[in-house]
């Protein structure tokens, strides 16, 4: 079945003209029409445009042009600005917003000849771990539609798991790619901070946000990362460092690779979850890797640290949404103050307002030192812990999430309960490190993921380690029932 082929296989068939990009696109559009209503993974479908893009890719293929993603369909998380197409960030605030430009990531993938099927659903302004805060309704997990797919990139994760596209883009600020990848049984990669341009990615927390990819294998993720990565002069935080050949790095034997198991998070971890990680470690040892324990003593503080830094930055980043130049404006504002408070009060959902207010609070006079400044100091301690660990090991391993997917509605009563979902993923964002989640088994018939984190710019090593695991196991080939 076309939707079970990997990107390399699809590119080969397109190259041999065994299928056209238009046929491939129609195939996925057909699946979306049938299967998406149960999942609500999309906010905007761009079927007409997709077929035009596919036709244009076909013309390029006819002319003899070849490329790893030429003619391949994808889905963009609705946080990336896409020219001429609504970009809503899952919010009423941008429900009527048509972006006048393409994000750098979008432009690069477009230039490579990809075909955009649509914009995926997400937690509002990327704030959430379950895709339940979207103005457009929650996304359902294809493994069990009573469960969440994770968030904030829930739509991209669910769509990839449901084989509605070969791959999807996402963003990860505290785990928003890795966590939903784990809960939906796909591979999710968050690159090093600064590896991929943030220009055109609607900012949530500027020093934490990174764009990344969902795919059904590390090999596919490597292909996509190759085209997303690289210096962008429009992003001052973009790093001007050469991009290695990620696909060529796959296949290097793991002999001598040192993998560190995070000591801090094994207390209180559910036995079945822990067992999956231990099984994974056995596989790695079988592949020639060495496994040892590492300690990151400040890591338990990573969640409170994140929930000071991220809201602080977002409270400022979201001030531009004021009903003046674009976006939602309240009806009949009676004066300027009313314009601001009601456009923002009505345009934003509850979680976004909570985070803006938390951020405003921790930056405010009298609290700045105790919260914001303190958190940035702890951030450095966490980063130093990772640096010390990477003196002893090449990669760090942990579960991606503490539990499998939970019920929709189960954690909405108390924000803090929801925040603790990110306990394994947040550290990598604070330290700017690359991380990948890959499927490693099932608990209660729901997928679980293992997470590998590496030093800055170690994506090649990371993807290879993930790839080797996927050569030795087949968790990543499982499809949810009804979506095979």
């Amino acid at each position, binding site marked *: 079945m076309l939707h079970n082929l990997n990107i390399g296989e699809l590119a080969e068939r397109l190259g041999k003209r065994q299928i056209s990009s238009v046929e491939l696109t129609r195939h996925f559009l057909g699946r979306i029409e049938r299967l998406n209503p149960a999942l609500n993974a999309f906010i905007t479908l761009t079927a007409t445009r997709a077929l035009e893009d596919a036709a244009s890719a076909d013309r390029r293929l006819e002319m003899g042009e070849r490329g790893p993603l030429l003619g391949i369909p994808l889905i963009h998380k609705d946080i990336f600005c896409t020219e001429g197409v609504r970009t809503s960030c899952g919010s009423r605030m941008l429900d009527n917003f048509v972006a006048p430009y393409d994000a750098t990531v979008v432009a690069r993938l477009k230039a490579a000849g990809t075909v955009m099927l649509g914009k995926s659903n997400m937690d509002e302004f990327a704030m959430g771990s379950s895709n339940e805060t979207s103005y457009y309704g929650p996304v359902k997990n294809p493994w069990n539609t009573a469960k969440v797919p994770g968030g904030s990139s829930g739509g991209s994760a669910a769509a990839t798991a449901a084989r509605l596209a070969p791959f999807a883009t996402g963003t990860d600020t505290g785990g928003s790619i890795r966590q939903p990848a784990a809960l939906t049984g796909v591979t999710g990669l968050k690159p090093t901070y600064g590896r991929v341009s943030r220009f055109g990615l609607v900012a949530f927390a500027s020093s934490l946000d990174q764009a990344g990819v969902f795919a059904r294998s590390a090999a596919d993720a490597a292909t996509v990362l190759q085209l997303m990565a690289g210096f962008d002069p429009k992003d001052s935080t973009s790093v001007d460092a050469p991009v290695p050949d990620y696909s060529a790095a796959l296949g290097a034997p793991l002999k001598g690779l040192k993998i560190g198991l995070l000591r801090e998070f094994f207390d209180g971890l559910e036995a079945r979850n822990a067992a999956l990680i231990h099984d994974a470690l056995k596989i790695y040892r079988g592949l020639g890797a060495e496994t040892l324990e590492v300690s990151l003593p400040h890591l338990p503080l990573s969640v409170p640290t994140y*929930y*000071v830094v991220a809201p602080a930055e977002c409270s400022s980043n979201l001030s531009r949404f004021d009903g003046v130049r674009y976006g939602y404006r309240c009806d009949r504002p009676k004066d300027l103050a009313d314009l601001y408070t009601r456009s923002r009060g009505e345009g934003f959902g*509850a979680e976004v307002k909570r985070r803006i207010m*938390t951020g*405003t*609070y921790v930056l405010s006079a009298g609290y700045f030192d105790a919260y914001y400044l303190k958190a940035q100091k702890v951030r450095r301690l966490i980063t130093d812990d990772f640096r010390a660990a990477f003196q002893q090991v090449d990669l760090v391993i942990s579960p991606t999430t503490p539990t499998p997917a939970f019920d929709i509605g189960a954690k909405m009563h108390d924000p803090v309960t929801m925040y603790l979902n990110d306990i394994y993923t947040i550290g990598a964002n604070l330290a700017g490190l690359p991380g990948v989640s890959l499927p490693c088994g099932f608990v209660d018939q729901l997928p679980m993921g293992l997470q590998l984190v590496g030093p800055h710019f170690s994506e090649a090593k990371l993807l290879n380690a993930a790839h080797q695991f996927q050569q030795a196991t087949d968790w990543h080939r499982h499809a949810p029932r009804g979506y095979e």
Partner: protein
Amino acid sequence: MSLTRQDVEKIAHLARLSITEQEMPVYVTSLSSIVNFVDELSQAQVGSVVPMAHPLDGQHQRLRPDAVSESDHHEKYQQNAPAVAAGLYVVPRVID
């Protein structure tokens, strides 16, 4: 550490967010819960550690040459605007 209703009103005003009467107690509770949670940071011993504003150390700001690279697209951009008159973005009267 609990927040009072006044605290929340002050923060909501700084952030220009309207909160209804019904919503107010919910926000007071949830914000108090969050602040309580992050108060865990007060236990951390940080000594003289330098705060980390950017995750990659040793990087510094790139400089861009002083060249005009943008031209006028106001008609395109103003298509998204809620209220425009004579090329200006219109808001309720601002009093100084």
